[in-house]
């Protein structure tokens, strides 16, 4: 019993930092509707800045004073980021801002490496709080007790801020109804900046507070962001009490998981999230997101049309060029084009559900990697001929998507996104931990194409045929009744249902189709690289696709393909440089700010404007 209680205390202590970071994220989302992926970066900055300040400050103020100052400093950084990066793009399509925050992550990672170097830093101890107190005979670190004691004060302070101050009134109003804040005559821009700064400060505080239990390192940002999103979603996006309950829930469950199911450490929290979302689609204390509530901002989409003669000629010319490429290009260019085609198909498949269906998936890598694994497993374990195994890739990924979609489709918005993420993590952990079948992260190797395809030129044509074929097929479907029905369900689910369209069913089928196409991309991928590892199922892989779709332009048909090609080329070039993450981050931020409609969307608008002014001139 004493042991049980000690475990519970460990969980509570862990919940402290988690709650601080999560409450910041939740606040930011609640008010600005920004899904801030850079939140982990503020946490990391908090840790590094905390160490620096603790070194600098003299005497008795050094530890606790440094923590408060760190919060202030990180809050300031957050305000700058909000003003420089996010403020220009609030009018961009929903969730577009997350791409910008991804750019911020990359920039902060490299800046931190430049400033603080690569080595891990051990966090200073809190003065006078080294060692343990015995509670019922069990040792409990003193600092744990302090953390447990602090958390309610933080919760109370936040509650006071939200419930009792003018800022709090505005925050609550904005969380409920953004238009109302504008109507109250409040400067929305400064409210957003203030909330973003507050949220960042909380993350920074969290980073500084955990120092006596750990330290600062360059992987902290990614390592916490998953847990933070899980907490915010389980609690209900925008709900502070929800974030508190969820932090405690996750932390305590983790502690018991470590003891009674030591292998569960990778997935436990995602399993919990999936269960919570299936039972309560909007988290424990969240409220339903009404479709379109966050404003269909930005220019409305124009009706789509298949390419006219000029467009067709352009596409044909491009394809001819690709077909002739082996005649004059060096082998590596072919490899690069295969990579590009694979990524373009993967992105196009995500774009299909995201653009036409309005379904933002954070877990699309499950189908890409799923397809790759399906083919690889067949080859590895049964020696199936490559041709057959290859066909199995889209099939298996499609089936997987049917299974996952069945749970996810009933959710909407960010909750849908997070449930897809949870499932993709489950698939990842399966590949990672089921070592007897998948070889874990040793991966499946020696998965090469059949002899007649093994060579850069034959495989190039193979990849081109299936990759481009897949992309064209998806395009065709978008122009077919099914694609129209998918868009109808996105534009006005109410009208669609009232005219006999089963919106959820249409979305379900589209989700499966997108999964199959991602699996096809995975199939092309695995035989081009000869191996597959769980990295292909990682969250990062899902976000690669998400980012290029947004960069290319969500409200365009070519966005995914163009974004993927752009990113493949830019990245291939940039990674040769020392500080490529900094540069890539800046490129992403620049594209986001300069081209809020994405590359294709902005070019199209520009083109129309030019043509229009031409006509006027005539």
């Amino acid at each position, binding site marked *: 019993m004493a042991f049980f209680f000690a475990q519970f205390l460990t969980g509570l202590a862990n919940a402290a930092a988690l709650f601080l970071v999560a409450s910041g994220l939740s606040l930011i989302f609640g008010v600005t509707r920004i899904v801030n992926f850079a939140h982990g970066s503020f946490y990391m900055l908090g840790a590094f800045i905390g160490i620096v300040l603790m070194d600098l400050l003299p005497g008795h103020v050094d530890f606790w004073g440094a923590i408060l100052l760190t919060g202030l400093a990180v809050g300031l950084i957050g305000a700058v980021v909000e003003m420089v990066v996010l403020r220009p793009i609030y009018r961009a399509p929903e969730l577009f801002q997350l791409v910008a925050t991804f750019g911020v992550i990359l920039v902060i990672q490299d800046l931190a490496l430049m400033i603080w170097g690569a080595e891990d830093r051990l966090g200073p101890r809190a003065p006078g709080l080294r060692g343990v107190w015995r509670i019922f005979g069990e040792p409990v670190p003193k600092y744990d007790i302090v953390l447990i004691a602090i958390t309610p004060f933080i919760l109370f302070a936040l509650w006071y801020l939200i419930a009792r101050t003018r800022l709090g009134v505005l925050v609550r109003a904005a969380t409920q109804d953004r238009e109302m804040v504008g109507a109250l005559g409040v400067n929305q821009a400064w409210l957003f900046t203030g909330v973003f700064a507050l949220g960042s400060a909380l993350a920074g505080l969290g980073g500084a507070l955990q120092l006596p239990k750990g330290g600062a390192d360059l992987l902290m940002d990614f390592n916490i962001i998953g847990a933070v999103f899980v907490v915010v979603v389980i609690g209900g996006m925008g709900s502070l009490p929800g974030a508190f309950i969820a932090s405690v829930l996750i932390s305590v469950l983790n502690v018991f998981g470590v003891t009674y199911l030591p292998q569960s450490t990778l997935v436990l929290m995602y399993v919990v999230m999936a269960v919570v979302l299936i039972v309560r689609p909007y988290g424990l204390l969240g409220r339903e997101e009404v479709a379109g509530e966050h404003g269909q901002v930005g220019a409305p989409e124009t009706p789509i049309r298949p390419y006219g003669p000029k467009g067709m000629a352009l596409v044909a010319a491009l394809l001819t060029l690709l077909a002739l490429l082996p005649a004059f290009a060096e082998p590596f260019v072919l490899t690069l084009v295969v990579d590009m085609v694979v990524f373009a198909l993967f992105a196009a498949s995500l774009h299909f559900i995201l653009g036409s269906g309005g379904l933002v998936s954070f877990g699309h890598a499950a189908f890409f990697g799923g397809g790759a694994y399906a083919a690889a497993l067949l080859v590895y374990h049964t020696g199936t001929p490559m041709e057959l195994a290859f066909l199995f890739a889209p099939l298996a990924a499609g089936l997987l998507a049917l299974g996952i979609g069945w749970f996810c489709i009933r959710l909407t918005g960010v909750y849908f996104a997070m449930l897809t993420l949870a499932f993709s993590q489950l698939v990842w952990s399966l590949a990672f931990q089921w070592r007897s079948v998948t070889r874990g992260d040793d991966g499946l190797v020696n998965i090469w194409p059949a002899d007649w395809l093994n060579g850069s030129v034959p495989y190039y044509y193979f990849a081109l045929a299936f990759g481009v074929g897949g992309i064209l097929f998806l395009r065709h479907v978008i122009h077919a009744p099914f694609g129209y029905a998918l868009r109808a369900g996105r534009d006005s689910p109410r009208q669609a249902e009232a*005219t006999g369209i089963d919106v959820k069913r249409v979305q379900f089928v589209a989700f499966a189709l997108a999964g199959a196409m991602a699996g096809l991309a995975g199939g092309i991928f695995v035989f081009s690289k000869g191996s597959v590892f769980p990295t292909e199922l990682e969250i990062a892989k899902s976000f690669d696709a998400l980012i290029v779709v947004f960069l290319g332009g969500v409200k365009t048909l070519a966005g995914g393909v163009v974004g993927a090609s752009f990113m493949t080329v830019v990245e291939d070039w940039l990674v040769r440089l020392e500080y490529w993450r900094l540069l890539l981050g800046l490129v992403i931020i620049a594209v986001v700010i300069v081209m809020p409609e994405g590359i294709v969307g902005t070019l199209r608008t520009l083109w129309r404007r030019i043509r229009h002014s031409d006509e006027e001139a005539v």
Partner: protein
Amino acid sequence: MSEILRVENLRKSYDGFLAVNGVSFAVAKGELKALIGPNGAGKSTCFNMLMGQLKPSAGEVYLDGQRITGKRPREIWRRGVGRTFQITGTYQSMSVIENVQMALMSHHKRIFSIAPRAWKLYRDEAFEFLDTVSMADQADRPCSVLAYGDLKRLELAIALCHRPRLLLMDEPTAGMAPSARIELMQLVADIVRDQGVSVLFTEHDMDVVFAHAHHIMVLNRGELIADGSATEVRNNPQVQEVYLGGGTLFKEDANA
């Protein structure tokens, strides 16, 4: 039986608040019937329960003798009920005619078809529907640039695609110029007459209501306080009480 719609004791409560409290009425075949009442009387809630967007707390709805209570909107649509909304719900990313084509694809059960080009499908048929609502000249404009009144007419065309037996129209003329209102309601009246469709509509504009409705129902605080001809309703003291605190002027009172 000559009733197309029969509603029995329909009830909806939200957290103890009764939005609709035991409403019963019927709509006859070929009838153009209005449901009026002040803001918050429960008209839209009522409509949403008829069409399946909301589940009633109690009561029954019968379409042509068949029970449709609590069925989903698309099932009710399948049985022959078309609907337009108070706040239009058109497909913003499509052109005007594509909106109609979409409804026709659903009507012809082609939703899951991936072979044909959608914009070529049922185009002529869609034109006819647009023509019915005098929108043919705007067929290829993006839906997102339409004036509000045009959106209302487009929605009517969409609702007609499945050849409904009953049309539910929530504020069909809201946001339109007075002349356009008369035009639209004349159009609806023609449809009722020519195609034998029954129409139940809510409306704020009393001119429209009294000029076109065969019968009028008045809803107040979730309860039906009158159901009858224009004259009967106009002379009903309870209705007068609700509308002008006892005054009699509601002919001139267009947008009360």
